[in-house]
């Protein structure tokens, strides 16, 4: 786990990690949230809607932003204050995602960083993009 102090951070600094989406992740997410929507849980239903299989929850994909801030940038001192995201493309079981954050602004007075975030799939297509406001505490 990283442990950057505010003074160690610079605009343009990036961190990223990879994660593979599994069936177990979707099932665990359903158990936690109670979202039983068939698009995420019924393969035949999802195929009838034009997808190759069950569609991963958008919020499951977005949940890796928590890891990005809490483990990678800034890491241990992270306190996520704000997240804005757009889900650009669907994510499926077996997709290998790359989660990336780039510091675009540092607000010294309140020790807050603004992070531009993108998540891409194995084909290099953006599946999520957004911004995060993170306090370094």
């Amino acid at each position, binding site marked *: 786990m990283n442990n950057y102090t505010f003074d160690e951070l610079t605009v343009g600094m990036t961190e990223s990690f990879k994660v593979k989406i599994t069936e177990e992740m979707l099932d665990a997410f359903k158990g936690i949230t109670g979202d039983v929507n068939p698009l995420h849980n019924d393969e035949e239903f999802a195929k009838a809607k034009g997808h190759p299989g069950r569609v991963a929850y958008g919020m499951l994909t977005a949940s890796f932003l928590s890891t990005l801030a809490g483990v990678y940038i800034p890491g241990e001192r992270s306190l996520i204050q704000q997240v804005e995201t757009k889900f650009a493309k669907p994510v499926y079981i077996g997709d290998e995602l790359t989660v990336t954050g780039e510091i675009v602004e540092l*607000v*010294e*007075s*309140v020790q807050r960083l603004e992070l531009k975030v993108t998540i891409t799939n194995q084909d290099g297509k953006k599946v999520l993009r957004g911004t995060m406001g993170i306090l370094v505490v």
Partner: protein
Amino acid sequence: MTREEVFATLTDIFRDVFDDDDIELTDATTADDIEDWDSLEQINLVVACEKKFNVKFDMKEIQSLKNVGEMVDTIVGKL
């Protein structure tokens, strides 16, 4: 920018941050007068002010502000 213009712009910032178009500020307005004005929203206010007015605060200044009037005066002093 005059004090009145700063005050009007600050009112717009408050309405945007708290998503409440009914907010009316006075010099005496404090966090006790706006239900959602907590420490996290205070940070959002500071960040929004720094961007809008193109000024920088330091932590001591922020902690010493007692009400909206002092916030306006601090911003005017930096323009």
